[in-house]
């Protein structure tokens, strides 16, 4: 079977491109690192790929605000991206990639494409790396979380990850369309404050999807949990065979193969 091609979008300051490519390769895909300049210069077309990933990092140093410059570049110079999302092919934005999707108005999805939410400075006001517990919305249409357990663990590493919305209506719309995909919870699966909610996100939101489920934006890093040896407690446990993050990439690959 031909391996689906994955476009891993990168630019100055993209840092998580290589491990994201490794994750897709482990999931059975053929990832390719593509610089945004190659898309803007029409040397490559996003439609030649089955899956799009915008990895983590500090695009353009996160000057102005996290993800802002790359988001503007996509809006003005890589207009195909919107069409790619609408075509129903899998799109995943991780950490800085989530910030880019939000600031480009691709998530939360709106008819006009305007930006209605943002990811802003953590309540702690500093960059933090820690493993978090997440509850997955089993009612969501997301193709990425199919067959995942309701509770998972993943690491976060960011300074600007607090999810906020422009107006209460935006949150209502997200809830109604079952677009809130992952929420930060404590060991008992309940909403809790810092450090369980590591950044102070509204409604403990860690990840959102578009209503049809092909476009995912998430602050936690699934590519950092693709083997059991990524888990901070793997030396304590014998039950876990592989990293749960790998399932997220596998789901995307399975989806395009079907």
């Amino acid at each position: 079977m031909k391996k689906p091609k994955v476009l891993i979008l990168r630019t100055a300051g993209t840092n998580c491109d290589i491990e994201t490519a490794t994750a897709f390769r482990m999931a059975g895909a053929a990832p390719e690192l593509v610089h945004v300049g190659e898309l803007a210069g029409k040397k490559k077309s996003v439609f030649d790929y089955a899956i799009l990933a915008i990895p983590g990092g500090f695009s353009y140093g996160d000057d102005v605000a996290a993800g802002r410059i790359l988001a503007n570049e996509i809006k003005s110079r890589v207009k195909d991206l919107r069409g790619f999302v609408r075509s129903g092919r899998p799109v995943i934005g991780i950490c800085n990639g989530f910030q880019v999707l939000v600031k480009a108005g691709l998530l939360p999805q709106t008819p006009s494409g305007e930006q209605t939410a943002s990811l802003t400075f953590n309540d702690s006001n500093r960059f933090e790396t820690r493993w978090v517990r997440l509850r997955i919305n089993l009612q969501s249409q997301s193709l990425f979380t199919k067959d995942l357990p309701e509770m998972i663990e993943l690491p976060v590493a960011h300074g600007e990850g607090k999810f906020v919305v422009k107006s209460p209506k935006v949150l209502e719309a997200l809830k109604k369309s079952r677009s809130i995909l992952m929420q930060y919870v404590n060991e008992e699966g309940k909403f809790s404050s810092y450090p369980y909610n590591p950044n102070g996100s509204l409604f403990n939101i860690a990840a959102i999807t578009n209503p049809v489920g092909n476009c995912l934006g998430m602050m936690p890093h699934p590519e950092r949990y693709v083997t059991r040896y990524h888990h901070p407690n793997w030396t304590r446990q014998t039950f876990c065979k592989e990293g749960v993050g790998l399932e997220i990439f596998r789901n995307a690959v399975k989806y395009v193969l079907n």
Partner: protein
Amino acid sequence: MTTATKSSPAVNGSANGSHDPAEPVWAAWSTLSAKALADLDAAHGWSLNAEELAAIQAFFKKLKREPSHAEIETLAQTWSEHCKHKTFTSAILYKEGRVTKRFKNLLKETIKEPTRKLKKTWCLSVFEDNAGIIALDKKWALAFKVETHNHPCAVEPYGGAETGVGGVIRDVLGAGLGAKPVMNTDVFCFCPPDYEGELPEGTLHPRRTMMSVVDGVRDYGNRMGIPTAAGAIWFDEAYKTNPLVFVGTVGLMPKSAVKKSVQPGDLIVAVGGRTGRDGLHGATFSSASIDDNTSTSAVQVGHAIVEKRLLDALLNARDKGLYRGLTDCGAGGFSSAIGEMAALSGRSGGARVRLESARLKTTDLSPWEIWVSESQERMVLAVPPKNLKALEAVFELEGSGVRVLGEFTNTGRLEVSFEEETLVDLELKFLHDGLPTRERTARFDLPSKSSPKRVKRSSDRMKVAEILHWSLGNLNVCSREWVIRQYDHEVLGGTVIKPLHGLHHDAPGDAPVWWPGAVTGEVDNFRGFSVGHGLNPEYGKLDPYAMALCAVDEALGNLACVGADPTKAALLDNFCWGDVDDPAQLGGLVRAALGCRDAALGFQTPFISGKDSLYNVFTDAKGRKHSIPGTLLISAIAPVHDIRKAVTMDFKAPNNPIFLVGATGEDFGGSLYEQWKRTPQGSVPLPDLKKAKKTLWTLSAAIQKGLALSAHNLSEGGLAVAAAEMSFAGEVSAHLDLDGVQRSNDVLDNVSILFSESPSRFLVEVSAENEKAFVKAMRGVSNCRIGSTIANPVLRVTALDGRRLIEESLHALKRSWQAPLPRMLDGDTAADGRNA
């Protein structure tokens, strides 16, 4: 346009040496008196001494011409302490008690000697490149370098720390044909952040220094996408005017990229950032002491995104084979980088540079300023002309600058011009070998060995609990989570043993383990590596030789604990010393260097690279000099044959046997217990190298065989602190019986067993079914079963006389350990445990 130099080299100076910087040639230099030369040196900040100035004068007299400003600057940069390590490579007459020893070249005869003798085939590049390089497996190699950025951090801690990280990353990028940086390390020595004593005018408060340094390391390392996963912090008031900031980088490279070369005709290509006025005289500045007139313009300005573009473009160009050699622009800027590379193409070598081609940040730079500026994020490549177009395309896509500055030659000369005007025309031979050397004198007097009269120490139960809580909350033991959390220690996806261990990911690991498969894509290759540190300046105050042995012992012990193979380890040394013009301080340095030599020979572990930072001195308003305590950092790197067998330090489950490996003696000199008692407690720990090696090698083999569930290296605070840390890390406690401890005859009491800091000791948890196998594997090494893990969350210790000595809740112990840094840095008193 620039203010450069169209005028003819007319006589424009006067006999007192005043000089118009717009003029290229320094008139009347040959006629200046020694005093006038010294005054000039002070005014220009060259940090050249009288002999060096005289040698330069004699050189130009012989040529029958006057030097240019740029030539003097080139020589000052190239001959600086920073670039040349002239103290460490000099001849030294060393007196220790009645013994006199003469070194022709201290570095060669101490640090480098074991490497030469041991001839390890897996050492691929030692001491000659920007970083040391060792083999990881058949295909891959690791480059490792640790730098210091102390002088800049004293003046401008945020910028100093950022550019320190940026610089060491470029060292690794510039090692061989370039290695991909995959892990950063950071080690700091600070004055305690809650310091309330006096500070000289112009000195930042230690709390501010610490927070700014951490911010700088975080902002640069995180933006570069390199995990900062190993490190240490040491607190001592002696660092209040001169903080120490050690930053390291490990790089991964194919073995085929280990060697570089330069050929005549290759283009000199500058890549990366532009050149500006920032960081002028950084190299010479680092050879001088700091006072309240020190200028902050000597500190460079960092810009991580420019370096990230450079990194991505460079590694891409490397994989396409577009250049033959490279080096980074560090101290001395273009002058050092091009001067160094020009000497790479063999004896003849040479370079011709046209400086007007350089990309500038500002147009008002004098040509000599362009030549020596230390603006960050720049590297120099040697590019065969046919590859230039392809190289430009690679860098253009990443948005990183490329500019041809000239070409390498075989004239044996360094020739630099600016718009047809000659700025520099120097023989490489004089530039690299012309530095006059002189013999220095050093002496060391061991403190008189008046061992204090042994008194039986009180084993009062309350007292022992108090010492334990105090030790856990001591600044040199307590949790570093406040710092570590701010670093992205997991980016690149290879950090499989993280800096924080335990059930709640918040306990002190001995060392991280890194898995290159995450970035090479070879996901079925489970080979990895680990990095460990050893540092204890408190021991150095008593005996620098013992400090060196203990540091090597600790660094290798940390590696052994996580399952790395210390028999294939390599070492880096970083000496930070005070005023080495003082024979007593230089004597301490010599003694520490001898310790490094003996430790490397004893453990059969070679040094592959190192760096020294001298003159960490503050001159106060009254002209008094304050030196830091001589501080040696040892960093060790070793392969982990199978990362799936790595071990962490947290106790795993109740009812498992606990072993103490290594013998316990009366080792209280420089210990935490001594600081608690505030009176001298005897001599400093001195590892028995033969036994230490056997202990480490044997334990490491047992751990690699999978016989240990958890292992922890005993360091500050000894057995008691290690047992407490392992217990609260795993939320599985221990019941220890001190009567089971193997000890030397002079160890009489409970306190000695609990808090002695004897080196090469480990606490190891073994499963009940593996107990026999473990004991068998450890044959020939001092070890004893001293208790078991227990489910009850209370650390229990039974005294020699059978009574219960310690019964402390893990929760309280952990709070004592966690509270200090959040309280001091955030004012977070909620995190406070009991007040010790």
